[in-house]
C-alpha cells in the first residue's frame, strides 16, 4: 500500500510538472529548431542546460504517456481532467456511459471511412483541369513497405490507361501526415464524446 501511494504521488507530481512546463517548452520549440542546434565548445552554458532540460522533459513525457497505458488510476485522473468529463453523481455516470458507447460507434465509423479513403489515389494531369482518373491501390501496396506500383514501369503503364496521358501527378485522398491524422482522430473522439454527452 505504501509503495502504491508513493508511486501515485510520483505520477501526480510528474503530471503536474509536465502540465506547467509543456506550454513553455512547446513555445520554445516554435522559436528554436532543435535540429539546427548544435552543442559545440563555444556553446553557452544556457544553451547546454536548455538542451539537457529539454531532453529530461522529453524523457519524462515518454514515461508519462506509457504510464497512462498501464496505470488505470492515473489514466482516469488525468484524462478526465484533460477531456473535461465529469461524473459527479449516478445520473452523470449513466450519461457518461451512453455517451461513451455512442462515441465508440461513431469513432469506428470515422476510422472505417479513413481506412477506405486510404486506398484511393487521384491521378491528375498537370496543365489540365479536373480529375483525370483514380487508382484504387491494392491492399498489398497500401500495407507493404515498398514503393507504390506507380513507381514501376507496370504501374506507369496502368496509370496511362486510366488517365489517357503520359504526364500525371498522383494525389492520395488521405494526404495528411501520420501525426496530423492521429491528432484528427483524437480531436474527433473527444468532440464526439462531448456532443453525445449534451445529447443525453
Amino acid at each position, binding site marked *: 500500500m505504501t509503495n502504491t501511494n508513493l508511486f501515485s504521488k510520483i505520477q501526480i507530481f510528474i503530471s503536474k510538472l509536465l502540465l506547467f512546463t509543456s506550454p513553455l517548452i512547446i513555445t520554445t520549440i516554435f522559436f528554436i529548431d532543435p535540429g539546427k542546434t548544435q552543442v559545440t565548445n563555444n556553446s553557452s552554458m544556457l544553451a547546454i542546460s536548455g538542451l539537457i532540460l529539454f531532453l529530461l522533459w522529453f524523457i519524462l513525457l515518454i514515461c508519462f504517456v506509457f504510464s497512462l497505458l498501464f496505470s488505470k488510476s492515473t489514466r482516469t485522473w488525468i484524462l478526465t481532467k484533460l477531456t473535461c468529463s465529469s461524473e*459527479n*453523481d*449516478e*445520473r*452523470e455516470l449513466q450519461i457518461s456511459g451512453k455517451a461513451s458507447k455512442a462515441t465508440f460507434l461513431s469513432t469506428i465509423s470515422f476510422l472505417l471511412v479513413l481506412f477506405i479513403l486510404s486506398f484511393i489515389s487521384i491521378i491528375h494531369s498537370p496543365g489540365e483541369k479536373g480529375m483525370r482518373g483514380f487508382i484504387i491501390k491494392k491492399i498489398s501496396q497500401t500495407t507493404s513497405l515498398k514503393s507504390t506500383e506507380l513507381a514501376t514501369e507496370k504501374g506507369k503503364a496502368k496509370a496511362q490507361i486510366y488517365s489517357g496521358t503520359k504526364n500525371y501527378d498522383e494525389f492520395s485522398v488521405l494526404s495528411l501526415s501520420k501525426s496530423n491524422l492521429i491528432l484528427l482522430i483524437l480531436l474527433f473522439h473527444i468532440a464526439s464524446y462531448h456532443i453525445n454527452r449534451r445529447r443525453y
Partner: protein
Amino acid sequence: MGSLLSKLLIHNNLVVCRAETKLTQQQLAEHIGVTRLTVIAIEKGNYNPSLELAFRIAIFFKKDIQNIFFIQNN
C-alpha cells in the same frame, strides 16, 4: 396495469415534498448527494433515480417511497 414488459411511466411528487420543507433544489441536491441538475431532471421526469437514491430521498423526507414515486395508470 397493462403488460409488465412495456415501459413503466414513473412519476414523482418531489416538487411538492421540496415545497413542504421549503428547500431549494441546490439544498436538496446537497442533502441527498447529487447535483442540482439531477434534482431538476428527476422533478421533470427526465430521469428515474436508482433504488438507492429513491430510498435516500424517501428517508430524507421521512415518507414512504411509494408516496413519492408512483406509477400512473394509463
